[in-house]
């Protein structure tokens, strides 16, 4: 357990000392949302109607941006080889990375989402539903992303391949995510989203660990 905690502490320290990475993701998230009114025109009704989808797309894109940070630095400086021989199982290493990935790349987006809600003329009730749906759904995005990053980590300049691998896997998350924001049948969609998240988070560490340990260096 202390090894797992050490892994968490290390990842959080690295993220905190990484400087502006978190801020960059948050700004990207807000900017994606902010350019929508320019693209579709200042029709408040239309904006309010497409807002749930836009929020999820912005969150999805912002989380893809952070994927390359998940395993690549450790791969490049040789840490990943050593982590394969650690006493701590590789799946636990991935689980720790998954938790911190969510904390540094999804939680800040959720905190920043009120700004986006304002820009997209969202009403208060929809805003609360959006907050819950992001909280429930982003772990699934992080988990799928971790698997994609693990599969592509050994590929040189594979940074752009992971998002392409991950995007199709994330479609159900987007469907149920936006479904749980819209007014009708939101609770059923939210339950599906929660099921997706739980399943993805439970399986991803093993899948990603398998991908890493079966790759050559």
């Amino acid at each position, binding site marked *: 357990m202390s090894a797992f905690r050490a892994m968490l502490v290390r990842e959080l320290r*690295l993220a905190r000392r990484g400087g502006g990475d978190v801020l960059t993701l948050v700004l990207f998230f807000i900017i994606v949302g902010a350019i929508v009114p320019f693209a579709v025109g200042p029709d408040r009704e239309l904006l309010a109607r497409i807002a749930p989808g836009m929020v999820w797309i912005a969150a999805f894109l912002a989380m893809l941006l952070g994927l390359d940070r998940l395993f690549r630095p450790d791969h490049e400086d040789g840490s990943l*080889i050593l982590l*394969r*021989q650690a006493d701590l199982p590789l799946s636990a290493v991935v689980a720790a990375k998954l938790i911190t990935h969510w904390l540094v790349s999804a939680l800040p987006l959720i905190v920043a989402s009120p700004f986006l809600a304002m820009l997209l003329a969202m009403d208060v009730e929809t805003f609360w539903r959006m907050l819950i749906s992001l909280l429930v759904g982003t772990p699934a995005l992080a988990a799928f992303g971790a698997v994609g990053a693990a599969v592509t980590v050994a590929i040189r300049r594979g940074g752009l391949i992971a998002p392409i691998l991950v995007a199709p896997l994330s479609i159900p998350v987007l469907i149920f995510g936006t479904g749980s924001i819209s007014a009708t049948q939101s609770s059923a969609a939210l339950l599906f989203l929660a099921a997706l998240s739980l399943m993805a988070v439970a399986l991803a560490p093993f899948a990603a660990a398998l991908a890493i340990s079966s790759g*050559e260096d």
Partner: protein
Amino acid sequence: MTSRQVFPPLSLRATGLVCGRGGMALTRALDFSVTPGRCLLLRGANGSGKTTLLLTLAGIVAPLDGVFALEGSDAETGPALHYCGHRNAVKPRLTVAENLCFWAAVNGATGLSIDAALQQVGLERLGDLDAGYLSAGQSRRLALARLLVSLRPLWLLDEPTAALDAEGHDLVTRLLDNHLDMGGLAIAATHDPITLPDPARMETVVLGARP
């Protein structure tokens, strides 16, 4: 073997081991065995497969042919080897002590304390410095300190003396000798000749040369 023996008696035995990358064989079929308290030095030109052999023994690369086994090891006790590669696995944004504490935690703090290990490798004054400020040789020393904080019987060292000064060279020799005293095994790929105080403990395999 001496009274300081701390490791269970393990021996590494390889039979007809052929290592290669991308399906291309780099080494001839190798037969060797390393017994407790012995060190195998791998010599050979660039590209003769020294690193590949070490990676194969570490389980990172699959052998093309042949088998190797660490006899006497118990799967329950966890990984039995330390790999020390070209890359030092040092995080520049963590301090020297934080780097070492992390590896001690994930590998099991069964060896020296952090302070003692840093003292052994001559970094005792730099514990609070960001590892990003270390020179290449100092980073190497930090990588070697990682081997000291968790006791594991088999050391796989890839160019352990790279970037080290003359004193660092002696340090590697001393650490290696200590490790063998404790009943450990070591395989080191090196261009620098390493001379242990007791040459009988060393065996040299030249890779690349046809027998």
